[in-house]
């Protein structure tokens, strides 16, 4: 009893703060106000990134007299800790950029405010982007860009094995594997390290085969159903004939030093437009072929919208909502798309001076899937990844690995 009291007190001492902080800060003003946006380096060239956001800040302030806006570039490293601590204390940003894989969690934690009223007219936005950023029918993120991934091929490596058409279906990839292996090249470059997001590795295969991570009710997982088992078996079959690079089970997604950039793998399955220049430098621009999403039972690849979300502590901040709306205007969106290599989420925005490859990415936008939005998506991923690793290392069959993972995952979802 005493113990309980002591704990309650110490908790209160350390944490009551958060409650107090969340309540206040309702500086609702019609004209002026302050707003802080935490932006992440989605524009890979740092000089361009700084210049672009400085200009956005200036233009916004010019158009909205009396508002002091701050757009601060944050590092990717430690993003979870930084955003989480800021929300816990109700201090830091009003707006921050998050992906649909994080939003449901933060909503469940009671830290975000809906932004339905920010977008007056939602008709210009792609439905899939809006859905991905919504939780329980409410929009929590203003979609300002959309990422896209496509397979990239090494033309020279394929030619050496006598393959002229890029293999972009499961059957063709399977077919190409032994031919490429004969010339010492693996067909796929697969990143099996457990801290890599499965969205870029196993999940696309699962989706291509018509499977999904979660059951339709969201209370159990579905990746161990036949579609998932076949997808993993597909990888294992490739591995058996030398179709995955050496050490695939522990490879990271880093381009530098990867089998693909060293010419030892023919297909890099999920590449973003912004990575192309680095790949071109590594294997030669003439050898880079951007494909369309790989087809199993259907053609699909991974891509997700980036949303500007509003902290609950800033729910009453009119300036924040104005800035969020401003970021979603066609002009800003077109500029961001051009600088970042990501894509606009509005159908009425044309990206200026798009390259041939950029157009290929843009054309794939309706074949992109952002993954199942589920508050426990990350837990499930971290449960599944080690079991896939075990299968890739030959310690478990596909069925067994996925069943073991499903058992753990379902325990999480039930609890």
């Amino acid at each position, binding site marked *: 009893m005493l113990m309980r009291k002591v704990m309650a007190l110490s908790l209160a001492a350390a944490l009551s703060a958060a409650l107090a*902080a969340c309540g206040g800060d309702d500086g609702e003003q019609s004209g002026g106000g302050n707003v802080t946006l935490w932006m992440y380096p989605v524009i*890979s060239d740092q000089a361009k990134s700084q210049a672009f956001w400085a200009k956005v800040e200036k233009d916004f302030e010019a158009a909205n007299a009396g508002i002091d806006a701050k757009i601060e*570039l944050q590092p990717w490293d430690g993003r979870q800790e930084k955003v989480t601590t800021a929300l*816990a204390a109700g201090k830091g940003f009003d707006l921050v950029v998050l992906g649909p894989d994080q939003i449901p969690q933060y909503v469940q934690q009671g830290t975000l405010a809906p932004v339905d009223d920010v977008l007056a007219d939602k008709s210009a936005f792609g439905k899939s982007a809006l859905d991905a950023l919504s939780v329980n029918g409410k929009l929590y993120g203003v979609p300002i860009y959309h990422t896209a991934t496509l397979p990239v091929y090494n033309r020279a490596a394929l030619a050496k094995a006598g393959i002229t058409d890029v293999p972009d279906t499961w059957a063709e990839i399977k077919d190409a594997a032994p031919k490429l292996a004969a010339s010492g090249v693996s067909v796929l470059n697969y990143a099996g390290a457990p801290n890599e997001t499965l969205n870029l590795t196993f999940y696309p295969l699962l989706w291509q085969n018509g499977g999904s991570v979660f059951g339709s009710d969201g209370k159990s997982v579905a990746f161990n159903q036949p579609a998932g088992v076949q997808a993993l078996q597909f990888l294992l079959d490739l591995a058996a004939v030398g179709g995955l690079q050496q050490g695939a089970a522990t490879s990271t997604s880093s381009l530098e030093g990867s089998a693909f950039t060293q010419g030892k793998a023919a297909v890099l399955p999920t590449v973003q437009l912004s990575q192309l220049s680095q790949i071109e430098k590594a294997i030669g621009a003439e050898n880079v072929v951007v494909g369309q999403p790989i087809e199993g039972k259907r053609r699909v690849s991974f891509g997700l919208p980036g949303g500007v979300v509003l902290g609950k502590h800033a729910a009453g901040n009119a300036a924040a909502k104005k800035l969020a709306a401003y970021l979603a205007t066609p002009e800003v969106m077109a500029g961001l798309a051009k600088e970042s290599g990501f894509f606009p989420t509005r159908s009425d925005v044309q990206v200026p001076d798009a390259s041939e490859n950029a157009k290929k990415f843009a054309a794939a936008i309706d074949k992109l899937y952002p993954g199942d939005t589920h508050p426990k998506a990350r837990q499930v991923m971290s449960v599944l990844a080690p079991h896939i690793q075990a299968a890739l290392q030959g310690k478990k069959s596909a069925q067994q690995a996925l069943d073991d993972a499903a058992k753990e995952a379902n325990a999480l979802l039930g609890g």
Partner: protein
Amino acid sequence: MTAPAEAALRRRFTLANLSLTALLAIVSVITVTPFVLMFVVALTPEGAPTLPAALPDRLTFDNIERVFSAAGFTRWTINSLVYSVVSVVLILLTASMAGYAFAKKRFPGRDTLMWSFLATLMVPFQAMLIPYFVLVSEMDGIDTFWGMIVPTLANSQAVFLMRQFIRDLPAELFDAAKVDGASEWRIYWRIVLPLTRPILATLGVFVFLWHWNDFLWPLVVAQSDDMRTLTVGLATLRTETVPLAQIMASAAISVLPCLVVFGVLQRYLVNSIATTGLRG
């Protein structure tokens, strides 16, 4: 060892010394090589072949310059210096005071207190980050220098280290001072501090390094651009497609001040406690 001992050693064990030196040289190769590799990669021109596959055919300062030219570079460096240097001074002072008391003073609850200090080191930082942050936030310490520095002063390793070393100072010194009627503060200031100079220098090097390289705490506590430290600032340049050469250039730049501090404090590290006036 002191000079006469060295002389004696030199006379007797020249061969032994040669082999010891050779052994040290081998170990040093293992510790220095990665450093050299870092600089080689950092100086590789963009897109040129580099380690580990091949040696670059020419070197350039482009990567280094690009890091230097980042908009906030000067500001970040100043912030890092403030964070590190102020922390070093304050920790050396408070930790040596506490270490002295734990080592040489008898007072109720001394050992319990010492161990409860040490015990806080056993709580994983990630586990208490939220309450810790909320606390500092409640004290209005977010985005301020004091909020960044003061919480890090409670450093168990520093206190524990000082205590372990002060404990072995001979009692005669303190007794003599007490007999002379020296105040407690004077004993601390005139006897304890000078005698522990080598260990203070060692601790100073460590505290500087810990703060200079610290990432997580400055990241979360310094929210605005103006308060950012160098480690955090350099991390903002690390986009998803940043080349390895750029990463290495950042690493090389942020490591240089650490080398300077180590170099400067070297001569204190060399002094043994025995040569600072305490001959057994």
